[in-house]
């Protein structure tokens, strides 16, 4: 049984779910840029309220968003501490050797923390409300202009979608192979580095062999179903730009303007 939640997508029919993926992708990107323009308490406050509204609109429990932070917590703490301890300027509150804490460095640390938080939140909204397939389709739509210069946009999107589709399969297989080798006396994840590298061989060789087998069989099956060239196919799915997208963009653009306007 797989305990892996694919792409962590949670089905729903909220405003955010219904937006077109290309617009969500670009909007997230735009939001990240705006975050870097924010440099005072009010602008961070506005962005936090914005993200809170987005989270509420997605209809997904805030618990999932907090879980998104967990794997990155050490990176965040490390970066924030670095900022606090090594930045100079402002009134010194405490110092020890090369380290010093000033009122400004504290504020900067807080801002860095907010940036992390906001970026994690917006990307979590994206992945929780958009299927991997839709993300692949969104990328395809965004890259469409590149077709003019013969860039294989459709092939890339198909490859991406197939790769995403096989993630859970390979995760399952990895778990089974690990279990099988554990049953044969392998210790994963303990001992010296050399020991760990050695233990990876009985896992990686079968995993790659399996992946190659999947790929061979899949390509035969695709051929049998009339596949020849991904640049000349019709598309079953189409994600149209909707009124919801326009409204969201107008709202985000306005907020962006405010953030830049009140920039110190």
């Amino acid at each position: 049984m797989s305990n892996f939640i694919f792409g962590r997508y949670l089905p729903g029919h909220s405003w955010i779910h219904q937006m077109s993926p290309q617009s969500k992708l670009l909007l997230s990107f735009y939001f990240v840029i705006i975050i870097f323009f924010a440099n005072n308490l009010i602008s961070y406050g506005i962005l936090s309220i914005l993200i809170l509204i987005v989270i509420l609109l997605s209809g997904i429990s805030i618990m999932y968003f907090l879980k998104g932070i967990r794997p990155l917590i050490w990176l965040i703490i490390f970066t924030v501490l670095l900022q606090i301890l090594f930045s100079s300027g402002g009134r010194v509150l405490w110092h020890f050797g090369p380290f010093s804490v000033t009122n400004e460095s504290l504020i900067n640390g807080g801002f860095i923390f907010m940036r992390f938080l906001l970026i994690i939140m917006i990307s979590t909204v994206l992945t929780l409300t958009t299927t991997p397939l839709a993300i692949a389709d969104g990328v395809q739509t965004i890259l469409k202009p590149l077709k003019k210069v013969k860039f294989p946009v459709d092939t890339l999107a198909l490859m991406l979608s197939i790769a995403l589709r096989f993630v859970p399969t390979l995760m399952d297989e990895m778990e089974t192979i690990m279990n099988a080798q554990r049953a044969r006396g392998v210790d994963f994840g303990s001992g010296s580095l050399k020991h760990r590298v050695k233990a990876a061989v009985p896992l990686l060789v079968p995993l790659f062999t399996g992946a190659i087998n999947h790929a061979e069989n899949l390509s035969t099956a695709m051929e049998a179903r009339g596949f020849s060239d991904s640049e000349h196919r019709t598309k079953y799915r189409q994600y149209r730009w909707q009124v919801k997208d326009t409204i969201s963009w107008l709202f985000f653009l306005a907020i962006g303007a405010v953030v830049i306007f009140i920039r110190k």
Partner: protein
Amino acid sequence: MDTAISLNKVTHTYQANTPFAQNAIDNVTLQISKGSFTTIIGHTGSGKSTLVQHINALLKPTEGHLEVLGRVIDPNTTNKNLKAFRKHVGMVFQFPEKQLFEETVLKDIMFGPKNYGVNDGEAKKSAFNAMELVGLDKALADKSPFDLSGGQMRRVAIAGVLAMNPEILILDEPTAGLDPRGHQEIMDLARYLNKNKQMTIVLITHQMDDVIDYATNVIVMDKGKVVKVGSPAQVFSDPKWVYGMQLDLPSSAEFAQQLKKAGVNIGQLPLTIDALADRIVRLVGKGDTK
């Protein structure tokens, strides 16, 4: 008979403490005797695989405890102690050929014993013994396992487990995808190991005829719980109940059911072809047919 495996109120929850928490097995208590040939049946998703993975400590119970060959595992058992535990419990997974990785057949079969500290010479000896048991020609020892046929690869994988000389052997649908001859050879091997090497066999299967032909004990699982334990005759005695568990009857019982429906008074359901044939002969009156 001595008990080889005993589970005491074992519950296993996947992704405990998350919104996705799911009881894969729920409050399971059961005993498996030393030297028995036990089959576990139940429809897909009933918890069979989760159950057997506890027997060699690939999973630890989230509640309850189990005892295998005198060693106890409970939720607090540390991972360090698991290796010794696994040494005596061999596990053949579904499509075990997927676990092969070494350059040669022999090396792959020696992999298990060597991990458990057996020296090269001994491991080699065990490997050749195991090859003989599964019917692999010695000449294949230096070949790459990836150059073999699917059926041969499966034998190599099974040999790799047998080379560790386990006392308990768990087989999770070991014949899936094999042709009838391959199927019978693997099943006969399991019987041989049980009868001649005194191995305790635990087999997960969907083939009810195999339950009848090979097993001494049957465990029926449904929705993570053990719903029946007994001999094959006991478990299949109530066709309605069997169908309700989304299981099939063995072929002979199924055929007898059809005869019953056609109005032939067959009596208690026979489980084997011979039992059914005897019953029919008795009804017909031996020898007085054209």
